[in-house]
């Protein structure tokens, strides 16, 4: 019932490539949407918590790719790498 926990951090701006017909909840939050070509839209979304936002992005699997910032990108790569089968991740 706690509706929100205030995060006292300055919001950052993330740039994400999104497949057509995917990333609906991200598109709804987007401050700008640009159609790059038939396979990708580029959207910008503001966020405050890098780890939480990276987790949200990972939920879209191959349909959403972080272009920047680097910190967010790295967190997404780390999570996805961790989701590979164990023998692969250990290599």
């Amino acid at each position, binding site marked *: 019932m706690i509706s929100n926990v205030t995060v006292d951090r300055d919001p950052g701006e993330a740039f994400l490539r999104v497949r057509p017909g995917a990333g*609906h909840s991200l598109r709804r939050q987007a401050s700008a949407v640009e159609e790059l070509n038939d396979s990708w839209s580029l959207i910008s979304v503001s966020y405050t918590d890098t780890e939480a936002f990276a987790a949200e992005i990972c939920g879209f699997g191959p349909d959403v790719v972080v272009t920047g910032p680097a910190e967010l990108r790295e967190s997404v790569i780390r999570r996805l790498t961790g*989701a*590979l089968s164990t023998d692969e991740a250990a290599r």
Partner: protein
Amino acid sequence: MNAKMQSAQSGHSSAASESATTRLSRLLTMVPWLLNRQGVEIDEAAREFDVTPAQVEADLALLFLCGTPGGYHGDLIEAEWESGRVYLANADAINRPLRLGVDEALALIVGLRALAAVPGIGEREAVVRALAKLEAATGSAAAGTARIQVIIDAEAGAENIAAANQALAAHRRIHLRYLVPGRDETTERDVDPMRLINVDAHWYLEGWCHRAEDVRLFRLDRIEALAILDEDGTPPSIAEPRDLDAGVFTPRADDQLVRLALGPEAVWVSDYYPIESIERTTDGGAVIDLRTADTAWLRRLMWQLGSQATVLEPAELAREVDLGARAALEAYAGAAGSSEPDGSTPASG
């Protein structure tokens, strides 16, 4: 809510016949009014309550059967109207003022405040009046209740709640554009509304979905567009409201069994989703079993949790998680370190 549900389920009742709630509310008002006006003419009572004299007589005939439990002659209201004038007696049970304990009154105050905050409820004035009376009656005991706030899903569009209420009241079918986050899909569907409910601080519309041909719950903050159709929205007779006491996720026995290993940072999953069993592991993690019909959301969850969770069973789901993560990582391969927000190079594949 119950009244709406039942009227929606019972199908058509002719427009002329009034609902049981309307009649009950008139009967409850009628008793003290008649007691204060012994010998009033039936015609005058009919004008006061805006019904026909025949309806007043029908109401009196029903009151005659009302009273405290027991049903003996002395327990029932006595009504006499043969002469064209109405006399009531033995109606103390209904005429007695409502007495509440302080705790009951405070619980009601908090509940009514939450209700008053719901957009689009029909009886807002009555809620506000009842609230004012209760606050006055409880006096200083109610002072602390201002600090208690019931937060009901502020994000759900007020228009959606109001429109859903309107459709329920008018028994109209609605058309929804609805986001299914578990599958990252926007869907279009026609729904016959059954009830509007608040579970764990979220508003849901329950209704018969013509796309799924089954009862579905729609979270109001995920409805992207709602249109009331000019079509009857009485759900089919097989539409049964779900028992939501255990929450909105109710796995079925024939759903697929999934076994997950959770790291210490992912153990929250076992509190968040309904699980069949849990075994704690020595590292602070856990192994859980859960049942689900749809594994798309689980795949997404596994990508989010990264190294903190592993699918142990079924092997097919483990493979899907691995393949999806691999495909997602391909977009980053080779471009590592480049973080310019140009995004102009689409990944191959």
